[in-house]
């Protein structure tokens, strides 16, 4: 087990290092933030002076070393645009993103669990088809379009919910649903196939033979076992939701990490983009690592393979 843990840790480390190089290079190859910060009539000398002041005149390997050596200590530098520590920017917005992600996940589960279970139980029927349509629509309709339509319907026409921003619980509903619906398809389809497998298993058949009601068999015994892969998937989704809700946060002017990274990309704010990408990667890699280790702990065949 120890050897397996070390191997997986090294793999995770390599993933993060490779990703850090990719994100470092990609952000720099698409333009210079200084040309966006100064007005159009700023002279070449103005631009060069500001590049020097921001440390952007140094060779790329030197800049990369600064980035990595500080990042491992939790310091992602100062935002070029915001002129403040990137971690302060992130910590200001993280609570908003966490809350929105939590609400979205709840909405996702509220939709995906019944749809997944019903689709599995009523396999091949019109209910199965309907569940699939609802789920797939959520994934196939562009998020920004869904957001705009929901705003027009519930905020502008019906005046039931606020358009944008934060403040009350009502502010969570539209962005939460827009984000949550997008994730329904993945979880619902995973749950459906997992449920089909479980429903066909021996212990479920035994439960039925014992005379338990269909409701108890499905919701208590089968669902509990079918949820294991769903929870793993959900944990990774949560990490992506926290940092990757770019479109939803932009449409709803939600002051979260997604909006921050959007502005970071637009203004070529390298430190912000690097920090958000690396933190997302760190969360995803950590969750994957923990899941793999848990599986290996439970199933010895994995660690010996």
């Amino acid at each position, binding site marked *: 087990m120890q050897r397996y843990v070390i191997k997986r840790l090294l793999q995770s480390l390599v993933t993060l290092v490779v990703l850090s190089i990719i994100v470092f290079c990609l952000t720099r190859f698409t333009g210079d933030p200084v*040309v966006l910060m100064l007005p159009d009539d700023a002279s070449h000398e103005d631009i060069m002076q500001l590049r020097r002041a921001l440390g952007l005149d140094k060779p790329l390997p030197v800049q990369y070393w600064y980035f990595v050596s500080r990042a491992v200590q939790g310091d992602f530098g100062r935002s070029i645009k915001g002129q403040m520590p990137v971690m302060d920017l992130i910590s200001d917005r993280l609570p908003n993103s966490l809350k929105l992600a939590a609400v979205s996940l709840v909405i996702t589960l509220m939709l995906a669990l019944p749809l997944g279970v019903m689709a599995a139980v009523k396999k091949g029927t019109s209910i199965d088809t309907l569940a699939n349509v609802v789920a797939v629509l959520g994934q196939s309709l562009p998020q920004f379009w869904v957001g705009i339509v929901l705003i027009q319907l519930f905020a502008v026409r019906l005046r039931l919910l606020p358009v944008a921003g934060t403040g009350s619980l009502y502010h969570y509903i539209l962005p939460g649903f827009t984000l949550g619906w997008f994730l329904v398809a993945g979880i619902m389809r995973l749950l459906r196939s997992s449920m089909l497998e479980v429903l066909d298993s021996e212990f479920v058949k035994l439960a039925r033979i014992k005379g338990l009601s269909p409701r108890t068999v499905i919701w208590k015994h089968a669902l509990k076992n079918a949820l294991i892969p769903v929870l793993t998937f959900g944990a990774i989704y949560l990490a992506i939701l926290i940092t990757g809700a770019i479109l939803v946060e932009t449409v709803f002017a939600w002051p979260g990490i997604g909006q921050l990274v959007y502005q970071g990309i637009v203004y070529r704010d390298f430190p912000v983009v690097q920090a958000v990408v690396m933190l997302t990667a760190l969360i995803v890699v950590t969750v994957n690592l923990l899941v793999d280790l848990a599986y290996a702990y439970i199933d010895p065949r994995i660690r010996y393979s």
Partner: protein
Amino acid sequence: MNTVVRPWCAGAQKSTQGGRRRTACSDAIKLIVAVAVTVAAIGLPSAAYAGAGPAAEKPTGELRLAMAGIGVMRPIPWQETVFGKGYLLLLYDWLVGANPDGSLSSANGIAEHWEMSDDRLTWTFRLREGIKFHDGTDLTAEDVKWSLEMVTKPESIAGFAARLRATIKAIEAPDPYTVVIRTHKPDLWLAQDLSMAAGHEAAILPREYYEKVGADGFAAKPIGSGPYKWVKGLAGSVIQLEATAKHWAEGVPKYQTVTYRVVPEESTRLAMLRTGETDIIGASRERVPELQASGFNVFVKERGSVIGCYFHQQWEAVPVRDKRIRQALNLAINREEIANFIFAGQAKLMAMYPVGSFAVAAGADPELKPYPYDPAKAKQLLAEAGYPNGFETTIYSYAREDIPELPRLVEAIAGYMAKIGVKLNIFSTEYPVARTKRMTGNMPGHISCLGTPNRSNPGDLLTLMYTLHHSSSRFTDHKSPELDALLEAAQAAGTEQEVKRLIGDLHRWLYNDYATMPIAEASIPFVANSKKITAWDLGRTLYDNNDRDLIRR
């Protein structure tokens, strides 16, 4: 045009419709006069009377603005871009005041008087006494000296910092209310550059407080001397300000709180306006007719943005090196159509880019007319220049917040050019990529389009022209000794009159050279709740929309 409706008369005005001219409003005036006369007659203490009058005015309500972007939202001038000037105008006072038309004013700036020495190397600013920062400390010459030194440091991202740095030799504060600025060379425009009409470089901060709390501490809780105090802010999202009891220049602010919110998506901003979640939004020009029809008040910064295209690196062996080709390309586009259909009628034609109509005040020639639309002549010119079958070059297309129409404009230009046989390959990219190519000289004979504020300050205009057209500049599209000589002469000119005359010469030179491809002067529209915002003079100052006009009673 919008009229100002006094709230207490609003109902009365409605009641006059179709009725006789005697209104409830005039009745109210008579009643107030009668009460005032009676009160005066019975001799109530003056304090009680004052309490019932204007002195009892208090800021009320909230003003909410939703914009696509608001600078960096870091309330420190040297760490904020020019696009954050609007909210800074409410938070700070500037060394030199300005009127909405861009002329300087001694009424709303810290300096009540300023003058340039005879040798034109020293400027002296006499400061107004009694101005206090929000924490109650006095604003003195030391604060001005320190603020200007901070904003001209190399790490400053303020737009005109480099220009000031190149000019200013030393700043002195001989007494608490006098600031002396010595310059390396004569600078006729220093007071203008340090005014509210220019950028945000001359916003004055309290030195002592800043040094006590540091940059990050100050950014979290900034203190100024403007009509509004800082409440809270989240960079890239929201800024909330609260009214001071009374500002020395603006009096009692109208609104208790002012909130600036960044809402990148236009349809969201429109929805917020429709549902009353915001009072003012930045809107695209194409939405203006629809929003006007919906009953919203539309305020525009008339001709605020000058839009045109460059022929890059004209000195290379490229078709646009030939003046006839540049003339042909200029005659090939129908500017009327572009103004009406691309800019939704919210644009006016112009003679030359980047010298706009505001520049007439700086000496530009008002007699120059926009180039006509004449594709037949354009074809003839191409043939004369040796390109009877046209040629091929690149035009860049990118989205910019200030010109959302730019990709469509580029497509339209490519369409017009195709009609005369010139094939423009549209290179879709992002602005930083195009600008980097421009800086590194990788656009030989290519075309790119941009917008810039319409400018009326001769010094500012001259700096812009120098940057864009002088052969020593990295951004230049020309390498012409004749043009260089004109630019150098204008920069060295000793009097305002001479500078203006040379700007006129430069304007005509560029026009006759078909140096660029002027498109139009576009208005910058803002849409407002018609019940709450009835008047707003957006002014002609650079990089702001005269936000202070919104908070005046």
